[in-house]
């Protein structure tokens, strides 16, 4: 969904933490703000992964980043086949 709103698939952004990267992402793609945030807080239906691990189980938006880390953002819109 975010991919659709941004009209792009992959971006390279610099940042020390996830929050830094999100800030840079919104600076270049301001239309994403309403998709990702609600009243300044990350929407509860947004999942952010750092190298495949949900930041809820890391340090949230303060999760530190290394070079070449991959951040994946998606909304909770998926479900498997019954």
């Amino acid at each position, binding site marked *: 969904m975010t991919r659709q709103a941004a009209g792009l698939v992959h971006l390279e952004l610099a940042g020390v933490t996830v929050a830094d990267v999100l800030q840079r992402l919104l600076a270049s793609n301001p239309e994403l703000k309403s998709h990702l945030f609600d009243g300044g807080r990350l929407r509860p*239906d947004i999942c952010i992964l750092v*190298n495949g*691990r949900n930041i809820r189980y890391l340090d949230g938006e303060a999760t530190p980043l290394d070079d070449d880390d991959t951040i994946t953002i998606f*909304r909770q*819109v*998926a*479900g*498997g*086949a*019954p």
Partner: protein
Amino acid sequence: MYGWMGTILRVNLSTGAITKEKLDENLARDYIGARGLASKTLYDELPPRTDPFDPANLLIFAAGPLTGTAATSASRYNVVTKSPLTGAIAASNSGGYLPAEIRYAGYDMIIVEGRSEEPVYLWIKDDQVEIRSAKAMWGKGTRETDALIRDETDDEAKIISIGIAGEKLVRFAGVINDRERAAGRSGVGAVMGSKNLKAVAVRGTGGIKIKDGAAFREAVLRNLAKIKSGPVTGEGLPTYGTAILVNVINSHGILPTNNFQLGEFAGAEAISGETLTRDLLVRNRGCLACPIGCGRVTEINWEGNRERGEGPEYESIWALGAACGISDLELITKVNFLCNEYGMDPITLGATVACAMELFAEGVLTVEETGMPLHFGDGQGLLELTRKTAMREGFGDVLAEGSARLAEKYGRPELSMSSKKQEYPAYDPRGSQGIGLGYATSNRGGCHVRGYTIGAEIVAAAVDPLTSAGKAKLLIDVQDFTCVVDSVGMCLFTTFSLGVDDVLPLLNAATGVDYTTESLLQAGERIWNLERLFNLREGLGREDDSLAPRLLQEPLPAGPAKGNVVELESMLNEYYQLRGWDNEGRPTGEKLQALGLG
């Protein structure tokens, strides 16, 4: 009765006897319908240790008390029998329009027993029931069978049929209804084939009596609003269908690749829901009274022709794709179309071919056995083996037995990615511990829809997928609630937006029974335990609540779950304890007493 139609249709194909029985109100209350009521019937009537292909095996088509009502997404039925793939209970679920038609014809369940000497089909028009010759349809695919039977009966008839795979007793043959919807797993179509029953055609013109129309309507509208506003049911599934999961699961490093050797697939983007939507999607298709409309009508260019069908769904894309290392989405879609036409479970097919590919890579299988080279990534090989499996031709005759028997035959049983001889679906449990416990304890063998903890572990990220703590309790709650949802006749997808307290007012208003939250969940627990009792009676036990050795001993080699295996033993001990079962996985007398099963 309200909610329930109150009548069970029983057909004995050996004698030709057709009888109608009154539904017992107490049984209906305790086992609800569909999966629950049919499982109770199978448990009570099937002699222990009956061979699944023996005429004595029962084949039960069962709808729930909400099936065919105005309740949102209540368009499901179950096909229940003893599975020829697993030897355990089989309860395979499908939606569409046929399930409601069974109810409009006046029945909650159709029980088929015995075996016909010649191919036949059932023609049910309200209270008129006939056994008709199906010689003209034998050997035909499911679509042609559907058309031929509607020509002979009523163009509005809804049809359940088997294809070649069911006729040939492929152990993972499914049944197809409404031309493209599948009760696909556990070989229920093979049991139908063993009875020489090609199809069941139903036309119903009656209605369903609701006890409290106003309360029912209010509950329907409340649930509809929740379904429409839920991110998964209101947006994700309608927009992308189930295949949206390919990239999500691959991002978590748990998209099983090359027979579960890896958890990440380099070709994921090419087989993703986004690619399917962009390149192949014609339109969405929904089941009766369902605003979600997750079905995908797709079209491919194949050998110069445009071919149209439905799917593939996420699980099929995975099994025919990543599991075999194949990233050609058009080919995967073609094989999925063939599976529908042959009436064959694409999950077990893909997983079995993946197992054969690893056996080939290991040098255990050679061209002498397979008749062709069989490497991971070989789409043409998969295509050819799909046809051969359905026909039981050459090496296909071996694949038609499923991966557990294949791997056992060649002395490498550990390479079958299955539990209770049924192949796993599309989530590597080394990176999602709860679903690992779910695969191990599922009453129908490796399966995601008996206890879809992926919803909590990955989709909603409500619990950490890598930890095993708390997963036994989570799984039990999901398993019991799933029994309720399957038994009332609702779609499991509603559970992304609805809970037990949303189902409760619907069921009470429809039936007039005063279920409480506790008694309804206890009915779910009763059904789960009854299925367990069936399996125990068939000789399955703790040793069958296990996983393929790879998942227990070989850490995932890369990705977010790198280094992890499934921590099964500790989760299983806790699971048994919380279930009120002994160390061998047998419900205690106290538990049976509490559930009214003693």
